[in-house]
């Protein structure tokens, strides 16, 4: 099986990731989505593992097909078309620093520079040492309007310390609130102070910064400790930058149909995606592609990725837990193609389940308007009614009447099932009258499941799924709640009380709550009496 990995990125992270993977024996292709592969620098060649490292410089990615374990990438290099097969795709796109000059009302020029530009000036290789001879006071602006980013605060403090200690220049750091929650940052701030860097915090209102036509800057602010107006005319002002997700991430997100985070980075804010996973098996996002991290964390993430790849088994194609499309019933509406959170339905040209990518959540089956998709792991809509009530000893009931409600409980495998096991261990069992139907995801419970249960002997139906930000499928639990809410509105027209149907969000460790929910629901059903649909 071809074990080549494709790394998409055009900066430092992609480069470091490529070298690390090649050094650990993985064949690596490196490309930029728009043709800009990372630059290894003039005269600097990749390390000795270069036999395993191929740089697709200048080649744009046109499209990608396939699924986990077997992606096909097509590149366009001017007129040439190049196709390559890869097993894994790793997105490692560096963030783009946005200079915050305009935030402070400043334009870059002789008296104002960006943090990146200043760091280059400080670099001993840059040959800029005379530039510091004419400077006696330098002001750094970071998070001056609110709070500093630890990552940027680190760079600012390091630059200020260098100035103070090695260049004999007085440094001032203006900030709204200095964040030192990061490895070594508190020590760095102390070292900077010890060397003589002056920290000025403006928490009540930002300093007034005026850039005169002749490039001279005046910073006026009320010192919040001394409660006196203060003024500084620095020889140079360094404005900080905010690392933003690269615009290439949007292109890649669209190309791969990846879940996006709230801030534009390529990973949903969902713990199931940690560390570098996405909604698509075989595609990972590394380091700056999924957030803003300090260099030490990116380095450890690269090492983790190399380890993780070396342990990834070739894609399982065991059909047992996968969706099956019955082609006779499929009308090619493409609902499954669109709704699958894992992009596991390919068009070939009719909809076909990409088994390597399918995670067996069941959402497609629930959404299919023709009931053309089936699973072996849970009953399809047509067979729900045949389930017998499970009778177990133990559990609590109010026991006020002879009527024992029959309740069908649909249990999500990641939340309700473990919670149920916990409840069983705590209480020794459940009351009579319960039937449990386990589903991989609450999203697999369709409207027909619910209606069939109600029309085939259940006095009440309960669906238990994960909390909204905790759903492995992303939106499965929300889909299930939506179906349940929609059906509750229709039930009265069938002469059925809407609260015979209930939906509950629980987590795997909520055994006590699972029991409480069941007890409360059964007590309520006792008061409602038997289902009139029976």
């Amino acid at each position, binding site marked *: 099986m071809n074990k080549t990995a494709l790394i998409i990125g055009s900066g430092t992270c992609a480069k470091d990731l490529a070298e690390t993977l090649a050094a650990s024996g993985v064949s690596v292709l490196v490309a930029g989505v728009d043709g800009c592969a990372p630059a290894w620098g003039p005269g600097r060649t990749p390390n000795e593992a270069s036999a395993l490292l191929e740089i697709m410089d200048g080649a744009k990615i046109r499209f990608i097909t396939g699924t986990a374990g077997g992606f096909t990438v097509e590149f366009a290099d001017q007129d040439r078309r190049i196709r390559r097969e890869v097993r894994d795709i790793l997105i490692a796109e560096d963030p783009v620093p946005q200079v915050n000059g305009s935030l402070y009302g400043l334009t870059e020029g002789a008296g104002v520079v960006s943090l990146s530009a200043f760091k280059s000036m400080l670099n001993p290789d840059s040959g800029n040492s005379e530039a510091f001879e004419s400077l006696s006071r330098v002001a750094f602006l970071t998070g001056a309007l609110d709070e500093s980013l630890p990552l940027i605060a680190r760079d600012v403090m390091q630059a200020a310390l260098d100035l103070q200690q090695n260049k004999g220049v007085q440094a001032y750091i203006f900030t709204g609130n200095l964040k030192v929650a990061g490895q070594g940052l508190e020590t760095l701030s102390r070292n900077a102070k010890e060397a*003589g860097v*002056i920290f000025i915090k403006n928490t009540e209102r930002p300093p007034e910064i005026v850039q005169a036509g002749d490039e001279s800057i005046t910073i006026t602010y009320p010192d*919040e400790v001394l409660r006196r107006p203060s003024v500084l005319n620095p020889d140079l002002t360094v404005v900080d930058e905010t690392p933003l997700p690269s615009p290439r991430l949007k292109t890649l997100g669209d190309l791969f149909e990846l879940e996006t985070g709230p801030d534009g980075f390529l990973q949903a804010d969902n713990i199931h995606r940690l560390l570098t996973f996405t909604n698509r098996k075989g595609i990972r996002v590394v380091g700056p592609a999924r957030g803003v991290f300090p260099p030490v964390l990116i380095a450890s993430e690269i090492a983790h990725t190399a380890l993780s790849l070396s342990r990834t088994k070739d894609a399982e194609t065991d059909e047992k837990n996968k969706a099956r499309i019955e082609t006779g019933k499929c009308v090619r509406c493409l609902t499954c193609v669109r709704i699958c959170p894992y992009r596991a339905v390919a068009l070939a040209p009719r909809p076909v389940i990409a088994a390597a990518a399918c995670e067996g959540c069941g959402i497609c089956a629930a959404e299919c308007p023709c009931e053309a998709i089936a699973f072996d792991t849970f009953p399809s809509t047509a067979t729900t009614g045949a389930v017998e009530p499970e009778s177990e000893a133990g559990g609590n009931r109010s026991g006020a009447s002879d009527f024992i409600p029959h309740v069908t409980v649909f249990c999500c495998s990641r939340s309700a099932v473990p919670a149920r096991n916990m409840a069983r261990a705590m209480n020794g069992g459940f009351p009579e009258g319960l039937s449990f139907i386990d589903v991989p995801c609450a999203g697999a419970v369709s409207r027909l499941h619910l209606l069939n249960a109600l029309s085939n002997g259940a006095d009440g139906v309960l669906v238990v799924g994960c909390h909204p930000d905790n759903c492995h499928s992303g939106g499965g639990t929300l889909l299930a709640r939506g179906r349940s809410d929609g059906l509750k509105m229709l039930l009265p027209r069938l002469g059925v009380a809407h609260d015979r149907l209930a939906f509950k969000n629980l987590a795997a460790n909520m055994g006590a709550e699972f029991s409480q929910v069941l007890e409360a629901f059964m007590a309520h059903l006792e008061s409602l009496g038997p289902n009139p649909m029976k």
Partner: protein
Amino acid sequence: MENQSVIALNALDHGRCRPWPFLQDFCLTCGICAGACPASGVDGFDPRKLVRMISLGMEDETVSERWPWICTMCGKCANLCPMEIDIPGLVQKIRSRRRREEVPGILHKGLEAALETGNNLRLPKDDYVFILEDVAEEIAAEPGFEGFTVPIDKTGARILTTIHNKLVNTHTEDLKHWWKIFHAAGEDWTVPSENWEGTNWGYFTGDDAAMKTMTSRIAGHMERLEIDTLLWPE
């Protein structure tokens, strides 16, 4: 009244007080010192402002302020400071930077007197001893304290104690409280006949040499009278 004049950073040499060993540059401006200080708010000042001014190199302005002389040196600020800044040390250093003629009047005069005569009041030895024995007689007249005497310069006593000048001036009655405790406890105590001053205005005015002189005298008593425990209420 709070100073409202503009601070021009360009005119300051922030390295001026950097060599001072009080860790003042580590200040986080957390304000715990200002919260604890009993003199916070007087003249619009607090320990945090003081530390900030020194960090900025505003030595001249700080030395000429009244507030460093209002500080009681209680030490609550240093006790609580998360960065372990020695604020009382800083206050003392600031006090020491003032020309001696500009030290608040009574402190400087009292110190001169103490250096020359062994007490802030220039009280002669005979008068001092007379006052002590007079108070002792009054105690001895009270029921339960028959035979009370004040031991002066007693060699080999267990405790040597000093005397604040006000206790032999305006507050002689206060001597009785703790002399009675000594008596009731059966304590073996004594006071010196000379260089008995309990305050140390060398310490108070940031005059290290004077402080050392005053302290050495007490230490001298301990050696001379062969006493190894000192009760120094000041």
